[in-house]
């Protein structure tokens, strides 16, 4: 049903197709492109885009398109991994907080309030400051910084669903709290969570690439979109294409994720409009 509704919308189809292409490139990229993203060739340094190098080459003569395709893997893994972390933390805390209520709820929500006092990039920066640089740490940092948003959404929905007659009936029949939460509450709050998780992938890719751009992620010469964009900064005049490749890649992927996410939201849970507009 949902899939059929999604398929009827052109924008979502386009987004899904682009996203599918990016995923295929990320997974099978190294098999498709036979050039080495790390291979330097000083003779070809700063070659503008041409038939042989459609995205040009960088200051070391490395093929920009090859690096963009190779970088897709790390950028997507960071985005998806961060959302998995945020989802795990958000589901755990949000379900417990909403279902248990009382002191537990109060405590969890105060912790979330404190986390919310740090804007996400700042919170991610704090986590990187403690854990150190590197792509895994950036992924953890972005994931942690998104946990409060997930907890709030999940807890809010749990509070609504737990008052429904069918949940009360399950309780009256003698179901244990854990079973009530996992079997009766969780399946009924999953739609808005899926929507948020989809849109959060876009946020994660942007925040992850931002941290890499600032020099806190993987180190050069590892191909990664944020790192490569930063690399091209000093060559804007002589080689604008060095930054353009990864820049266009990030933007296209994020637009695609947003198109799918927006449509999912309209189909699954239109009430989320205010949240995902942010």
């Amino acid at each position, binding site marked *: 049903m949902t899939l059929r509704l999604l398929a009827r919308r052109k924008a979502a189809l386009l987004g899904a197709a682009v996203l599918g292409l990016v995923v295929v490139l990320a997974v099978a990229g190294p098999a498709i492109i036979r050039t080495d993203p790390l291979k330097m060739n000083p003779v070809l340094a700063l070659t503008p885009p041409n038939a042989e190098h459609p995205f040009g080459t960088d200051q070391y003569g490395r093929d920009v398109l090859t690096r963009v395709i190779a970088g897709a893997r790390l950028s997507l893994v960071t985005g998806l991994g961060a959302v998995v972390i945020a989802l795990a933390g958000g589901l755990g805390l949000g379900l417990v907080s909403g279902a248990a209520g009382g002191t537990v709820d109060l405590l969890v929500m105060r912790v979330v309030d404190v986390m919310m006092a740090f804007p996400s990039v*700042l919170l991610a920066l704090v986590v*990187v*400051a403690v854990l150190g640089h590197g792509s895994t740490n950036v992924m953890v940092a972005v994931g942690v910084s998104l946990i409060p948003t997930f907890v709030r959404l999940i807890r809010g929905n749990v509070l609504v669903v737990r008052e429904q007659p069918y949940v009360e009936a399950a309780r009256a029949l003698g179901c244990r709290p854990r079973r009530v939460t996992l079997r009766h509450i969780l399946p009924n709050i999953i739609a808005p969570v899926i929507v948020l998780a989809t849109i959060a992938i876009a946020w994660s890719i942007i925040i992850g*690439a931002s941290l890499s751009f*600032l020099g806190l992620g993987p180190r050069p010469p590892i191909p990664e979109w944020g790192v490569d*964009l930063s690399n091209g900064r000093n060559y804007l005049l002589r080689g604008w294409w060095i*930054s353009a490749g990864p820049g266009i890649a990030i933007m296209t992927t994020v*637009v695609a994720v947003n198109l799918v996410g927006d449509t999912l939201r309209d189909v699954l849970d239109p009430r989320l409009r205010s949240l995902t*507009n942010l």
Partner: protein
Amino acid sequence: MLVSLQQRLALAIPVVFGVSVVVFAIVHLLPGDPVLVMLSGANATPEQVAELRAQLRFDDPLVVQYLRFLRRAVVGDLGRSIFSKRPVFEEIATQLPSTLELAGAAIAIAVAAGLVLGILAALRPNSWLDRLAMLIALGGVSMPSFWLGLLLIFGFSLELGWLPATGQGGWQRLILPAATIGLGYAAVVARLVRSSFLEVLGERVVVLKHALGNALIPVVTIIGVQLGNLLAGTIIVETVFSRRGMGRLAVTAVLDKDYPLIQGVVLVSALGYVLVNLLVDVSYSLIDPRIRHREGAA
């Protein structure tokens, strides 16, 4: 009004306490010997290690250390930067005005551009203008600020030569970084203005100024909600445009592992964010009488 202010202040107190604990914990969560980690980037001599160890007094119980940290922070003593050796408070005080200036200009651009785009889109719903405006809005939401910043530098500084690319001083150097942050939020404002404008126009209010007044309330709300992220946006944009400011200070501190400076910047930023949110909350009830009445009834 006074009651709601008191309630909000009471809610903010545990948050401020939590923020202070998190900032205090940054150093204590470091893997290994925090003193060695803190000095690892500074090529420190054994004397410097001993000096910092004596200064930080890590052997005291954690509670004692926390209370000492708190007592000092309250009077503005946030320690000294490991690199510049200057007091952290002084470092922050010299950088903060630049960030506030940038944030103010960014908000102005976000509201102005967002209103124009949103109203144009709402006046002719589903026309090509509406689609174009919403396409620009989608682009704005999906565009990482560092990429937009580089595009603006490339277009307006390097190619056209209209504006300086980097540095400090004068409104000319403020436009591009402020536009980089502001245009992203203009997209959010535009989407919001469009939908709330459509709602108001649907109520057969035809005079623009009436529709505008009502449509502005959610815009104020969203600017308030987004202020923290807007300030976080300065972290990236200040680096792209090589501007002085709190954001660049934070990044340099993390790259240099200058932990007293990290603690200071994070503490001031988070407390500033809490304070701004408090002010925004209170200002709603001033702007929108409905909220005031609801609170009065509650």
